[in-house]
Structure formats: C-alpha cells, structure tokens
C-alpha cells in the first residue's frame, strides 16, 4: 500500500476514532462516577450498556411492528428510544446497587467486585434468555433511523448517524458536568465522594446520593447503548463485555474517579485504537493486522499503570489514614 492511500484514509480514520472515542467516554463516565464515590469498580456497567442497546432496539422494533415508526420523525423516535432505555437502565443501576452492592458496602472490596462480576453474567444470560425466548435469535438488528451520508470529499463520508452520536455524547457529557458542578445534588455527590461519614454528618443522605450516582451513570450507559445500536445496526448479548473493559481502561487512562479524565481517556483511546488498527498492518508489513485491535487498549492500560498509576488527569491518591 503506497503512502498516498495511507494519507487519503486518515480523515476517515480520525472520524471513526472520534465516534468510538465518544462511545467509550460516555460509558467510562459510569465507571468513573461509581469509583469516585464508592471506590468500587462496577463491572456490571458494560452489561448495563448492552441492556440499553437491546432496549433501544426493542423500542424501535415495537414501534415498527405497530406501524408507528414510519410516520414518526426520526429524531422523535431516536429520543424516545434513548429515553426509555436510559430510564430503565437507570432503574436497573439503582436496583443492582441496592441488591448487590449496598449489603456489601462494609465488606472487603474484593467481595463487591465478585458480586459485580456475578451481576454482569446474570445480565448477559438474562438478555440471552429473553431474546432467545421471544425472538429466537441472539443477534438483533433494529431499524436504522438515519440513513443519510454527508460526503465531504470523494473518499470521506460522514453518516448522519455518526454526527448525531458525537453530538448526543457531547450533550450528555456537558449536562453531566453542569449537573455535578452547579446543582445542589451535584455538590452532595462530590461531598460524599470526598468523605462519606463527614457528608452524612452534614445531613446529606448518603444512600440517596449513591443511588442517584448509580442512576445517572447507568442511564448514561444505557443511552450510549442506543447510540451504539444505531451506529452498528446489530446488537448481541456480548457487546458489553469488551466495550465495558475498554471503557474501564479509558477511565483508568484518564484517572479513575475524575469526570474530565474519563472523557479525555475515552476519546484518546478511541483515536489510538482506530489509528492503530488502520496503520499497524501497513507499517509492520502486515505482521500486526486489524485483528490485534483489542491489544492496543490493554497495552496502553498497562503502560499507564506502570508509569502514571493515577492516570493522565488524576491526582495521586494519598493513603487514607
């Protein structure tokens, strides 16, 4: 492959990397919020994302089967799918916290981690079971709402849906930032993250704040699932696993517990992965092809943990006394 070809595909690779990066970033927010407040890695978060993808697709399919979808403005249908998916996944997040994490809050952290892994397998199989029962298939292809493609040049195409995904992700991240920094509940969340006991002495209902954190994180994850389903068209019960791990990597990369860090970590990881996948093959004489794309994320994770364990934007955590 000559230099020219490598160069002409660059803009497209960057656009893809950004799209992927924003998906990672929003999911990473869920990991980082929960970690920031509970110091717990919610490994079920990737599966919440997956459930969101299924719920969004199902909402669209149900609307289609009733013949409502055709007459509806695609934006309205899109918002409706996101709304339903994020409300239900938000509720799931709170339920999971109540059942699987709260009773274990004072146990060693390893116990809660195992509980999280259990929840994630439960959700995978729950979706596999329900979908297998009602649709007799694991792969669900939903209707595509936005089919337009904006050609920038002869070799660069931006599908409308990609643009929409980037915009939606930015809207979600900005509103979360405003919520956390400007509202009373946001202040309460930060206070609980700082010190649960002191916060509770300041008449903050710690349990409520934690539930709220789970609700927001999970509903963002669920909404991202809908974005994912729109971007790739097909969902299966296993999409949450790798994507969850990568979003977690993004959170660690940016400094876990840090909202801004999660966003930058996600975008960075998406870009690195996309560039790596596209260029590793040609640059190494096809010794490393696109098949090793998942390796990039985890190599980066290891490197960051070795040299800057607090992440790119995190502050070095001092041992609590």
């Amino acid at each position, binding site marked *: 492959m000559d230099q020219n070809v490598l160069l002409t595909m660059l803009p497209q690779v960057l656009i893809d990397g950004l799209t992927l990066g924003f998906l990672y970033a929003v999911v990473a927010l869920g990991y980082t919020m929960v970690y920031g407040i509970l110091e717990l890695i919610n490994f079920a978060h990737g599966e919440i994302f997956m459930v969101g993808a299924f719920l969004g697709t199902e909402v669209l399919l149900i609307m289609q089967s009733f013949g409502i979808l055709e007459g509806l403005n695609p934006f309205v249908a899109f918002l409706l799918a996101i709304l339903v998916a994020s409300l239900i996944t938000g509720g799931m997040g*709170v*339920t999971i916290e109540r059942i699987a994490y709260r009773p274990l809050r004072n146990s060693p952290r390893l116990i809660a981690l195992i509980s999280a892994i259990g929840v994630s397998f439960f959700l995978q199989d729950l979706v596999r079971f329900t979908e297998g029962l*009602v649709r*007799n298939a694991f792969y669900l292809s939903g209707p595509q709402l936005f089919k337009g493609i904006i050609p920038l040049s002869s070799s660069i195409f931006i599908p409308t849906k990609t643009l929409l995904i980037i915009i939606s992700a930015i809207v979600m991240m900005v509103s979360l930032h405003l919520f956390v920094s400007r509202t009373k509940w946001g202040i309460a969340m930060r206070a609980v993250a700082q010190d649960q006991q002191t916060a509770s002495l300041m008449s903050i209902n710690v349990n409520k704040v934690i539930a709220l954190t789970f609700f927001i994180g999970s509903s963002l994850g669920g909404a991202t699932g809908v974005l994912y389903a729109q971007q790739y068209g*097909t969902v*299966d019960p296993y999409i949450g696993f790798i994507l969850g791990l990568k979003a977690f990597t993004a959170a660690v990369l940016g400094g876990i517990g840090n909202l801004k860090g999660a966003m930058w970590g996600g975008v960075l990881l998406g870009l690195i992965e996309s560039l790596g996948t596209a260029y590793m*093959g040609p640059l190494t004489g096809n010794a490393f092809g*696109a*098949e090793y794309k998942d390796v990039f994320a985890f190599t980066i994770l290891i490197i960051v943990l070795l040299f800057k364990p607090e992440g790119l934007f995190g502050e070095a955590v001092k041992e609590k006394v």
Partner: protein
Amino acid sequence: MKNKKLFYVLLVVLAVGLILVGCGSSEKASTSSNSSSSTSSSSDSSSSSNSSSSETTVVKIATQSPLSGPYSAMGEAIKLGAEMALADNAEKFKALGVELQLFPQDDQGDPKIGVSNAEGIVSDKQVLALVGHLNSGVARAAGPKYEAAKLPVVSPANTAVDLTTYGWATFHRIVAKDDVQGPAGAKFAFEDLGAKSVYVVHDKTAYGQGLAEAFQEGAKALGMNVLGFEGQEATQTDFTALVNKIVAMKPDAIYFGGMYNQAGLLVKQANERGFQGYFLSGDGSDNAELIKIAGVDNVKKTYITSVAGDASRTEEGKAWTQRYKEKFGKDSSTFSVYGYDATLVVLNALEKAINENGGKVPTREELNKYVSATKDLKGVFTTTTFDEKGDNINAEVFIYSFEEGTYPAKFIKTVSVK
C-alpha cells in the same frame, strides 16, 4: 423507609421494561410454538404406533445441529429435513419390522456441547446412525467419539477439508469441501464478474479461515491480485477501521469467510464508506438475516457460493418443498434438503443391510460398511457416491446472487467440482 419505596418503584420500572421487551415479539413466538407443536404431534403419532405393534425393533437416527442460538435457523432445517425423511420411509421400514425414531440433539454450534451430546448418542444402543453436524468445528471435536463407537455419520453441511483426512471410517459428507468451494468462488469472481483484485477477510474460525485460505489460493492461481488477507474475531461488530483500509485500496471485490451476521455488517459498513465493488462470501452467509443486517439496498452486488442448492429448481424438488411447507408450516431452506438427503443415505444403507442380513437389524459397524458403499443414490437434490475417504464425488458448488434483496438468493450457476 423512603428508600424502600424508591426501591419498589424501580423494581416496577424494571418489570415493565421486561414486559415491553417481551410483547414486541409475540408474533415470532407464536410461529415457533407452531413448529414445535407440529414436531411434537409427529412424535406422538410414532410413539402410539410403537405401543400398537410389539414385535418391531426401534431404530433411532440421531441428528446433531444447533437448535438454539445464532445458527438455529440452519440447524433446525437439518433436523426437520431428517424428520421428514424418516416420516416418508416409516411405512417401508415398518414392513421390515423396524420402527424409525428421530433422536434430535441440540449442539448449539458449540464443540463442547457437541461432544457431550455425542457421548449421550453413542451410549444409547438404539441409535444406529447420526445425521449432522452443521458446524465443522463441532464435527471435528465430536468425530473421535463416533469413530470409537463405530457409529456411522453422514454430514449434510460440514465443509472443512480436514474432516475426511483423519482416517475416520465413520465420517461421510454429501456436500462439497471448502477447498472446492473457495476456488469455485474465486473462479466465479474472476471469470463472470471480471474482478482482478480482491481483499480477503475471515472470522478466525476453523470454517471461515479455511474457506478464506482456499479462496485465496484459487484467486492467486487465476492470477488475481490479493491485496490483503486478514482475520477479525468472530465476536467483532465494528469493521470500520478495516473497511477504511479496504475502500482506500479500491479492490474489485471483498471476499469474506465466515457467518452471515458478520458478513451483513461488513457489507453494510463497506457500503456506507462508498465501496463500489463486489462482495463475495461462502455458505455461512446463506441466510435471510444477512439481508436484514446489511440492508436491502446494500446487497445488490453480493454473491455467495454455497454447497447447498436450491431444491425448487427441479420439478421433483418443487413438489418436495411444497410438501415440506405443508408439513412444517415454514419454507424449506437449503439445508433442509441436505438433511433429508443425508438421512436418505442412512436409510438406504439400513434397508440394504436388513435385506442382506436376513431381516435382522445390523450393528453400527455393519451399517457403516453399507453407508460407505453408497453408490449413485439419488436424493431430492444430490446424487451420492462416497469415495474411500467419505467425500461425495458428485458434490457441486452453487453460486447465488442477492441482487433482488430477497431470500433465498437468486441462483446464478453451478460450478462443477471435478
């Protein structure tokens, strides 16, 4: 207390969500229950006839194919084909004092499950033969079990080249191998579509990679320019980075060795990036879901090679597909015919063995000899003659086009194997 209230409210929200997910698909559920009722009714009738005549010997023919999971549509077609063949021949065998029973097993396309099912099959003394598997990886894992138990196997779908190279006496297949199917695709792309360059992608499974390698060899032998050869995990859904690279290289065609779900995504994502060339794939992509996933507008230049032919092209086949539809209430797919024909191979051998044994039901080992000796047996679609390794020397490869966006795909031509 307030917290508890919130908790219950959320539980209700969750429950409503699950119900929503459930009711959207009641339509599908009803069709599947329909088919299962038809199967159960047929097994009812066979068990009632069992009790009425006490002197018959029960012979079970096992099938192993995915009845649940992503490949269940193809797997069920094999099972129903076998079921129909048994029903069609039940009377004839009753006269010989044999009652045929189907022993269907679900391998879920998973080698581990296939092997544990195989143990159950070989330990049931009434099972004399197996029709299956769909996935070559499963057949490879379970093969030694059948070989050790001397249980004859007739595969309606396994195409991996190596399966007939292990010296298993019990393994037979009526379909063409990958090293025939791959080059046939290459020949079609080169001669009929005029493709001079191709990018080869596979899913890193035994099936997909084997097929892609066979295609690559065939393409190189014809003088086609193979621009790249790359694998993507079978769980991968995001092909965009790969597609960017392919589109930038402007090959005349993309070849994919793998299953329909990924093939569909690849077609879709390539089209979204402005790919103008042809898309070719193997029989793993022979599925209606491919069109759904890729989108009707995107499959216009999609072609597949298949070891399975369209039965409805002949008068006899048309009558057969009609009967199939009446019996099971659903359209036959390409693997239905093969399930039927593979079962016919078994039944033909069984009949011969009984007749030449003085009316006695043969052992598995004896039956296997008769299966291996099958010569010029005409089924609904295939004519079967096994060579010494168990490959069907009459196997053919068929080319289909998705240009109309309907399933089954439009038949284009036959590429001969020999």
